[in-house]
C-alpha cells in the first residue's frame, strides 16, 4: 500500500490530471476492505466517503444475492472481479474505424451517427475541429452562468462535499438490496447534478457532454438534486451500441426533487446484448430511484431498453410530498436470447399524489420479457390515483412476455386502475402495410413504432428520432 500511495501522491501534480496517467494502477482482484480503501484513496476521497463505503461493505457481507427474478444467470464470483481499473490507455484503443467490428459500423450507419461521433464512442482520438471536449466546455460556461453544477461524482465529492454528504444515500440507502449496497461500497464514478432554486435548466443535460463519462466503469453512481422550483431534463446513454469489457453493471441513480421541482430522466440503453446464440453480453442490474421530497414535485422516467443480455431494473418514484407526481414510460425490446425483467415502483405516501405507468414490451426470437411493477398507496396518501397500462407484443412462439403487477391499495379515497394486454402483430395490419408497398420488415417497424408511440413522444426531440430507428434495428431478423 505505501508505495502505491506515494505513486498516487506524485501523480497529483501531473499536468494532465490523474485520469490519463494512472493506467497501470489497478485494484487487486477481489472485494475486501483493502480494495475499498484503495478505491477511496486513489480518488482522494475524504474520510466520510470512505466510511460510507466501508459501512456499505459491512452491510453487503450480510446480504444474499436475490434470486426471485425471472431471468436466471450463471453465478457471479464477486471475488473474481476487478473493482477498480483506470481507463484504458490510448495504445489499447483502436486507432481508426477500420479496426472496428464491421457489424457495429453497419448499425452506426443505419442510425445515422456521424463519423466523428462513431470514433468518439469507441474512444478513438478525435481531431480537434469537432472535438466534443470543446463542445462540452461551451455548455459548461452556460451552465455555470445559471449556477448549475454538472460534474463527475468524484469532482463533486471534492468540490461540493456538503451537497453530496446531505443527499447521497438518502434515496437508496446503503442498507438497500444486494446490488445497490455493492455499488455504495465500490462505486467508481458517475454524474452529479445540482439545479439551484428557481432555475430552469436551459438545455438537456447529457452524460454525452461530460468529458470522461465514457469510462465511468461498471459501478456508476449518479445523483441529481433539483432544488425548489427548478427543472432539469437529463439524458443517459445513447442510441449507439456500446461495447464494454465489464459484464456486470450495477449502477445506482438517485433523484431528489424538492418543492415544485421537476426532474425528467431519459435513458436509452443499448449495451452489448451478446451474440445471436446468447453468448456474452452485459448484465445490467441497475437501481434507479427518485424521491419527490417536496410539495408539487414531479419525477418522470423514460426508458428505451434495447441492449444488454439481461436487464434487471425498476426505476421507481417515492411520492412523499403532497401533490407530487411520478411517471414512468418504458419501451423494452428483447431479441435473440436477451432477457429483461423491468418495470417500476410507485410508492404513494403524500396526499393527492398521482402516478402514471406506460410500459410497452416487445419480445422476439428466444427472448424473455417481464414487466414487474408495484403500485402501493399508503393509508395516508388520501385522494391519490394511479393509472397503469402495460402492453406486450410477441413475435414468434419461442419467446415469452410476462406481466407481474403488484397492486396495494390501503386508502379508500384513492383509485388504482391497471390494464394489460398481450398480443401479436395482427395479420390484417401487416397485410395492409404490405399492400401499400412496404416490405414485411418495414411493415413491422412501422407497426411497432406505432405501438411504442406513447413512450417515444416523451423523449426529447433529437433522441426520439434516433430511438425510433433503434426500435426498428433491434427487431431486425425477427420477422419472417
Amino acid at each position, binding site marked *: 500500500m505505501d508505495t502505491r500511495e506515494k505513486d498516487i501522491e506524485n501523480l497529483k501534480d501531473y499536468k494532465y490530471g490523474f485520469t490519463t496517467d494512472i493506467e497501470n494502477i489497478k485494484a487487486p482482484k477481489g472485494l475486501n476492505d483493502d480494495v475499498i480503501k484503495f478505491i477511496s484513496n486513489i480518488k482522494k476521497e475524504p474520510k466520510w466517503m470512505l466510511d460510507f463505503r466501508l459501512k456499505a461493505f459491512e452491510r453487503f457481507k450480510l446480504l444474499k444475492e436475490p434470486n*426471485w427474478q425471472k431471468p436466471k444467470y450463471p453465478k457471479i464470483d464477486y471475488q473474481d472481479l476487478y473493482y477498480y481499473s483506470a481507463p484504458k490507455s490510448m495504445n489499447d484503443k483502436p486507432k481508426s474505424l477500420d479496426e472496428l467490428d464491421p457489424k457495429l459500423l453497419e448499425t452506426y450507419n443505419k442510425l445515422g451517427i456521424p463519423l466523428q461521433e462513431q470514433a468518439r464512442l469507441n474512444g478513438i482520438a478525435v481531431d480537434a475541429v469537432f472535438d466534443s471536449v470543446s463542445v462540452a466546455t461551451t455548455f459548461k460556461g452556460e451552465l455555470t452562468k445559471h449556477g448549475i453544477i454538472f460534474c463527475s461524482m468524484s469532482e463533486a465529492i471534492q468540490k461540493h462535499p456538503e451537497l453530496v454528504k446531505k443527499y447521497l444515500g438518502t434515496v437508496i440507502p446503503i442498507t438497500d438490496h444486494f446490488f445497490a449496497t455493492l455499488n455504495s461500497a465500490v462505486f467508481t464514478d458517475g454524474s452529479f447534478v445540482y439545479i439551484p432554486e428557481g432555475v430552469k435548466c436551459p438545455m438537456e443535460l447529457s452524460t454525452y457532454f461530460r468529458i470522461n463519462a465514457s469510462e465511468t466503469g461498471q459501478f456508476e453512481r449518479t445523483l441529481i438534486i433539483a432544488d425548489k422550483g427548478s427543472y432539469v431534463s437529463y439524458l443517459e446513454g445513447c442510441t449507439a451500441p456500446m461495447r464494454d469489457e465489464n459484464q456486470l453493471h450495477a449502477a445506482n441513480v438517485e433523484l431528489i426533487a424538492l418543492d415544485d421541482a421537476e426532474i425528467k430522466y431519459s435513458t436509452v440503453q443499448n449495451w452489448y446484448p451478446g451474440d445471436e446464440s446468447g453468448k456474452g453480453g452485459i448484465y445490467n442490474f441497475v437501481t434507479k430511484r427518485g424521491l419527490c421530497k417536496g410539495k408539487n414535485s414531479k419525477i418522470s422516467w423514460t426508458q428505451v431498453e434495447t441492449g444488454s443480455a439481461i436487464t434487471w431494473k425498476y426505476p421507481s418514484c417515492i411520492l412523499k410530498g403532497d401533490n407530487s407526481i411520478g411517471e414512468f414510460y418504458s419501451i423494452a425490446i428483447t431479441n435473440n436470447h436477451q432477457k429483461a425483467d423491468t418495470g417500476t415502483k410507485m410508492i404513494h405516501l403524500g396526499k393527492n399524489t398521482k402516478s402514471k405507468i406506460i410500459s410497452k414490451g416487445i419480445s422476439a426470437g428466444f427472448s424473455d420479457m417481464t414487466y414487474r411493477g408495484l403500485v402501493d398507496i399508503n*393509508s395516508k396518501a388520501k385522494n391519490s390515483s394511479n393509472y397503469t397500462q402495460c402492453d*406486450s407484443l*410477441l*413475435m*414468434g*412462439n*419461442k*419467446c*415469452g*412476455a*410476462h*406481466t*407481474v*403487477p*403488484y*397492486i*396495494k*391499495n*390501503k*386508502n*379508500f*379515497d*384513492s*383509485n*388504482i*386502475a*391497471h*390494464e*394489460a*394486454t*398481450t*398480443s*401479436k402483430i395482427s395479420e390484417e395490419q401487416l397485410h395492409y402495410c404490405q399492400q401499400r408497398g412496404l416490405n414485411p420488415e418495414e411493415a413491422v417497424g412501422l407497426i411497432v413504432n406505432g405501438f411504442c408511440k406513447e413512450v417515444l413522444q416523451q423523449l426529447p426531440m433529437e433522441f426520439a428520432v434516433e430511438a425510433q430507428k433503434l426500435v426498428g434495428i433491434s427487431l431486425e431478423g425477427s420477422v419472417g
Partner: protein
Amino acid sequence: MSEQLQLDFDKIVKTSNFTNEEIQFKKNYLNNFIKKGFPNRKQEDWKFLDISQIIKKNISGLSFFNDYSQSNKIDPTIFVDGLEHNKIIFINGRIEKIDFNFEDQNKIEIIDEIKKDISFDYENSLIDLNSAFTDKVFKILIKKNYSLKKPLIIYHSTNDKMKSTNINLRLDFELGENSCLKLIDYFANNTATNFINIFYNFNLEKDSILKNYKIDKFRNNNLRYSFNNIEQDNNSVSETFILSAGSNYFKNEINCNLNGEYSSAFINGIFSLKENQQHEIRTTINHLIENTKSYQLIKSVLGKNSKSAYQGRIFVNSKAQKTDGYQLSKAILLDETSEFNAKPELEIYADDVKCSHGSASGSLNEDKIFYLMSRGLNYQQSKELLINGFLLDVVEKITDSEIRNLIKNIIGVKE
C-alpha cells in the same frame, strides 16, 4: 408445534385402521410438513396474507387429532331450503352421510380406497398437512353421459364435540365423458376458531361440465383454506364461483390445467368483508394446448379493517396458440382502514394469443351517489344500491338459473 403434530399423528395411527403402507405414506407427508411448516409471507404465494402469523394470532394451542371412529349427530337446520339436492355432510371433518337420492345409483360410483398420492407439482405445505391428517378419502365418479339431475351440496359443519382445532379433508371427483356435476360447497361452521384445510381434486374428461359454487356467507371465526385442482380434457368446461364473506380468514386457491383442446375455465368471485376479515383468492390457469379459454372476474367490497387479495395467474405454454385469457379484478374500499391487494399475472410463451387483465380499486363514485340522492334515495340507500349493482354483475355470470337465484337470495342482491 412439531411435537404436537407427531403426538397427534401417533394417536391417529393407533385409533384408525390404516394399512402399514398407508401409514408410511402419511408419515412422509407429515415429515414434509414438519420440515416446511406453515407457509409464511416470505413465500411469494403467501405474500399478502401470512397464514402462519394469522394462525398464531387466532389459534392458541393448535391440535390436529380428530377421532373419526365416532359418528356425529346431523343437525338438519343447516340444510338449504328451497332447492332439491343431493347431500354430502361433513361434521367435524368426518363424512357422516353421502346421499344421492335423486340420482340413478348405477351412474354414480363412490370409491373409498383410492391412491392418495398427488399427481401434480406443488410447493404448498398445506397439501402435505392435508395428506398426513385426512381420514378416509372418497372418490366420486360420475359415469359417462350422465348429468346429475339435482345439484350436490356438500355441507361443511362443526359442532361442540370437536376436540382439535384443525380439520383436514379431501374429496376426489372424476367426471366421465359428457357428464355434468353441479356442486355447491356450503359452509355452516358455527363453532369457534378452527383451521380448516380442504383439498379437492377434479378430473374432467372429454365434454364434461363441472360447476362448483363455494358459499361462505355466515359470519364465523374459522380460518379456512381451500385448494381445488382441476384437470381438464378436450372440450370440458369448469365454472367456479366463490362467495367469500363469512369466515375470519379464507383463502381459495384454484389450480386449473387446461390439457385438452377447446377446454375452458371460468372463475368468478365475490369478497364481501367486514371487521377484521382477511380473504384471498389465488388462481393459476395453465393453458397447455391450443384453443383454450379462461375468464376470471373478481369483485371486492371491503368494510372496516378488512383486507382482500387477489392473485391471478394466466400461464400460456408455447404450444397453446389461440389462447384466450381474461382477468378482471375490481374493489370498492368503504373505509379508511380497508385494504385491497392484487397481483394479476400473465406469463406467456405463445404469440397468437389474446390475453389481458385489468384491475381497478377505489371508493364508491361520489357522482353516482349524488345522482341517486338527487332522485330521492338517502345516502345509505344509494350506497347499497351501487354495491348491489356492483356485485350483481358477478352473480349474473352463474350459468345455472336455479343456483343463481339461490345465491342471489343468500347474498341479498336484487335485480
